[in-house]
């Protein structure tokens, strides 16, 4: 064989091996977490291993639309994951456990299903015992109907209720606020010589007095980011996905494995006083924390901290009550 032929064969062989091998090498050395709409698989991989105290560098890319990444109950800025681009973040966990990461962008009808877990292992102190949430302590049946039998004819005003409450030394302890619905407190005030509207105003004031402007503001932000897609910007159950959820009905659920028997429900309308004024904060906590068990309402207990859930609940009541600014 002539030298030129031999050399050509060597060059061609090296070039072909390089053209095949180099992309595969770099590809295998760069593990990416792929984000896809839940209908197309969600996060891949959706289980990530990490160790306590060891920085965990994650690289993400979206295979379809804009997604976002955040870890539940962790104080962090969410990361936008753009189609075809790579975003990265480094996380360090100081406690072992199973953390939930989730999509922070309204990417599609089943957006809330885009979740995965980070399993953090490593040396640590003995596990902290978790106290049961209030709704469990109170033994509430959060799926039982809780409609308020009486509702106000006009929106209750905390401003109007404030003077009445002060003049009559009416206050509401934190425990009562958390465990009783506005209607129950309204009912408790029946022996005072107020009109019904005045009693509702007092209830509105008592609810406001159990929250802070910061808490309401935080709740508003959490609501806008996580709840408004279904429940609507103004709480009316008319979010951008509400119609789609109605239209898709069971079909959208059945596209997800293991969810054949789920039944979709229209997102709750928080502006409906019968529903909202009949629910105690503890009951709402249960619904948010546990989720709707197949109704389409996600489980948020692994995402929000307890404080965030109370902030959210405080904000939800603001759809019923007129608070002073």
């Amino acid at each position, binding site marked *: *064989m*002539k030298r*030129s*032929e031999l050399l*050509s*064969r060597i*060059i*061609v062989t090296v*070039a*072909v091996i*390089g*053209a*095949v091998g180099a*992309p*595969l090498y*770099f*590809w295998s050395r*760069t593990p*990416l977490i792929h984000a896809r709409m839940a209908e197309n698989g969600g996060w891949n991989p959706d289980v990530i291993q990490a160790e306590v105290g060891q920085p965990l560098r994650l*690289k993400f*890319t*979206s*295979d*379809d639309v804009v997604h976002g990444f955040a870890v539940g109950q962790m104080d962090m800025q969410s990361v936008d994951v753009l*189609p*075809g*681009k*790579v975003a*990265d973040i480094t996380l360090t966990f100081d406690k072992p456990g199973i953390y939930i990461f989730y999509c922070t962008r309204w990417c599609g009808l089943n957006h809330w299903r885009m979740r995965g877990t980070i399993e953090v292992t490593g040396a640590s102190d003995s596990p902290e015992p978790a106290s049961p949430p209030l709704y469990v302590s109170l033994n509430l049946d959060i799926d039982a109907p809780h409609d308020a039998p009486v509702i106000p004819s006009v929106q209750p005003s905390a401003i109007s209720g404030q003077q009445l409450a002060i003049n009559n030394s009416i206050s509401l302890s934190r425990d009562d606020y958390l465990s009783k619905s506005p209607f129950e407190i309204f009912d408790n005030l029946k022996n005072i010589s107020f009109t019904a509207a005045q009693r509702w105003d007092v209830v509105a004031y008592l609810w406001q007095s159990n929250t802070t402007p910061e808490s309401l503001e935080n709740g508003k932000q959490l609501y806008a980011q996580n709840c408004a897609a279904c429940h609507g910007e103004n709480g009316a159950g008319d979010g951008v996905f509400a119609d789609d959820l109605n239209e898709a009905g069971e079909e959208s659920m059945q596209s997800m494995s293991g969810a054949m028997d789920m039944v979709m429900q229209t997102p709750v309308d928080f502006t409906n006083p019968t529903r909202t004024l009949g629910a105690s904060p503890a009951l709402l906590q249960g619904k948010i924390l546990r989720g709707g068990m197949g109704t389409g309402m996600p489980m948020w207990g692994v995402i929000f901290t307890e404080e965030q859930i109370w902030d959210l609940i405080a904000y939800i009541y603001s759809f019923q009550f007129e608070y002073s600014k």
Partner: protein
Amino acid sequence: MNRIELTRNPFIKNTLKSRYPQLAVFIVMLVGYIFAILAGLIGTPVGSHNFSIVFVWIAWWAVLILVAVPFFGRGWCAVCPIPLPGEWLQRGAILAPPDKRPKWLNLRVPKMFRNIWMQNISFLLLALFSSVLLTTPNITGIVLAAMLFAAIGLSTIFERRAFCRYLCPVGGFIGLYSQTAPIELRIKDKQVCVTCEGKPCYNGSQAGYGCPWDVFPGGLTKNTYCGLCMECIRTCPHDNIAINMRPFSADFAKPSTRMDEAFKAFIMLGSSMIYAGVLLGPWGVFKDAAYNVGTSAWFMYAIIFLAIIFGILPGFFTLGLLKTKSALPLKGRFASLATALIPLGLMFWVAFSLSFVLTNASYILAALSNPLGLGWNLFGTANTAWQPMLTSILAPAQTLALVGGLIWSARTAQKAASETRTSSIPIIVYCFILTSIMLWLLL
């Protein structure tokens, strides 16, 4: 007609005669092609950021249809990497002289397939799936790989470049439009070929291989089937092969009489118009139908697509021909006058391609820096924002291309009509109507 022999220039001649410059380009192309396959298969599924989609369907297509075909004819075929592995396998060598005994089956392609009907079909197959193919990286990767393996497979069964000559979906229309190009490979003196012993340009010799395109250069009258592989320049013992510059569309002096070529003209013309409507038009229902392969809407789209190409366009063309009188039978007139649709089709494709190439060219920079979607920024352009380019000149350029194409095809129709001693008016009217529709679709 005046021709300038480029191979008189010693640099050009030596560059073409030597195998090394072409081999160097081949290797780069082959590496790029394999990389595109892998990028399609393992890169991001987001088409606008995937190297295979961006470099094949935007960058390569732009170079091919806006530069290579109009100015260099089969210039792309001269450097195309697809047939190389098969050809090297077939020969058992990359550079070494051919063996006397073939290494593989070396069969002759059956006569019924020695036309471009298979290329017409392969192009239409890709065209019908194009909405998915053009946007889905792994489909593009699979199709690119399939073409490479098909070329290898055919090289082991049939002699020469059977894939390029009879199956390549791209080669068919490049050949058709290469007739318009101002460049050609031709012999210098016919008498030299007549008396040449052994015809090494076709049969091969110690100096090189017989024409991979199954063409005897001595009989070349048009560019259609000459792949510009330059092998005959190396094998001709009489230095009788030349690369010439010539006027545009010089090959139309003698119009084609082949129905496969005539229908290729209709396929290309119709496809460009359908793409302009479906891919660039405002009708979402057409886009959905084209994209949702396998659905009843897609089948309807496919039926309409084929009906336009094989029914409506040739039907009205034939109706126009019926208005003319000629001693030539209708079939002969059809094939001959369809030549007028070649420059029209080419300019339709130029106008259509300008739209999406200028709109999407900015993706090239991002894909160049991050070809596998792994977050690289090789040249600092990975985050280049999408930005349509030269939007102000798009409409004038498209209008110029379409009107220019109409004038060019009218001129071609006149020549073809005078060859067949018939009237060119119905064909010119036909071209005018199609150009008007295309203007409406694009502007």
